[in-house]
């Protein structure tokens, strides 16, 4: 265990634990748009920047992204200095220029006192804030079906060649993790459509309820060795089956006891 000074208060932490998790554990609220527990931090949005210094640095200080900076003994961290707030305001100002009609950005910007962007709005802007959560979650999943393509200011998230991604299994992780709900998808009469690709959903053999796509099930069967027939019926019907099976065992036991 090590000690760090957080906004003037001494706090205990694990060696190497990222500053952001310590800050959050202490109940201090700082924005972090591209951070998510299921994926490695990547430091893209820079909103979680904090000021750090050490006693031996004699006043010299540095700004680092707390999502990526490992805690060290004797570190002095300040999360709401004027310079840090200025960075957050300017970054949110830039985000407002990039995604003017994204509710998430508008709300976060207002909380930081930025109502209107002072920059030139990007022509035909969408709500994608380029946090790469979707491409990273797909990588953690083991498929890497989509990725960030091109470079610099025209960098976008897209499937290869803009066509149907061959590696996509329709699990919707990307759509679900997206903080601004930019990735469109539809489930309609047994077919799920995402990234212009159509997937057949598995319908429960008993009641027809659909939970996941056939490709997703095949992936779980092959790479997470889940037996195939677990996917044949839905969770409701499984519970009823369990109750009946358990019930018949009890009845037999009672008859045997008579």
């Amino acid at each position: 265990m090590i000690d760090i000074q957080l906004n003037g208060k001494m706090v205990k932490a694990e060696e190497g634990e990222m500053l952001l998790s310590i800050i959050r554990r202490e109940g201090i609220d700082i924005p972090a748009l591209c951070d998510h527990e299921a994926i490695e931090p990547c430091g893209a949005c820079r909103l979680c920047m904090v000021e750090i210094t050490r006693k031996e640095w004699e006043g010299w200080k540095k700004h680092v992204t707390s999502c990526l900076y490992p805690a060290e003994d004797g570190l002095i961290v300040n999360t709401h200095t004027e310079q840090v707030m200025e960075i957050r305001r300017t970054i949110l100002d830039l985000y407002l220029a990039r995604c003017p009609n994204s509710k998430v950005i508008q709300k976060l910007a207002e909380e930081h006192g930025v109502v209107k962007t002072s920059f030139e709005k990007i022509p035909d802007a969408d709500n994608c804030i380029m946090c790469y959560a979707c491409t990273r979650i797909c990588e953690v999943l083991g498929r890497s079906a989509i990725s960030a393509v091109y470079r610099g200011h025209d960098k976008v998230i897209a499937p290869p060649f803009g066509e149907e991604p061959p590696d996509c299994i329709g699990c919707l992780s990307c759509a679900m993790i997206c903080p601004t709900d930019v990735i469109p998808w539809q489930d309609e009469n047994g077919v799920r459509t995402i990234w212009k690709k159509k997937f057949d959903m598995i319908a429960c053999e008993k009641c027809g309820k659909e939970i996941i796509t056939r490709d997703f099930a095949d992936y779980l069967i092959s790479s997470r060795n889940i037996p195939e027939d677990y996917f044949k019926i839905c969770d409701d019907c499984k519970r009823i089956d369990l109750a009946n099976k358990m019930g018949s065992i009890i009845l037999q036991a009672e008859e045997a006891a008579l």
Partner: protein
Amino acid sequence: MEHDINKIREVISRSPADPSSLITVLQDIQREFHYLPCEALKETAKALYVPLSKVFSASTFYNAFSLTPRGENIIRVCQGTACHIRGADQLLEQLEIGLKIKAGQTTPDMKYTIEIVNCVGACAMAPVMIVNNKYHANVRCDRAMRLVKRG
């Protein structure tokens, strides 16, 4: 434009079949076909055990690669700092007018492609223009088209 799949596989097989040779393989394909055909990228993804999305990201990230076929003659105009202040803009504009295409495009007859390069390291002889690996130094803007036609 169809490409013989075996030719593609032969080009890919020149490098070890692991993810770290992705950039080298893409460069070999670019040199062989003058661009990165779609099926070549799919073959590369399979051969190097790299997801197709990562192959596509790399193909669009680096300047050297082009996803669309390029002309027979590649004209590269250097836009380094030295060339920029010694008239690279006028040189580029003359070429764009002469060939009726903008930088990065290819003439309809697929003969010429104009490309911008950020610095080729011949700054002492700015402005520099390269036509198919032949360097031309101190190019005055009105002589650009003549040098291109001469090749």
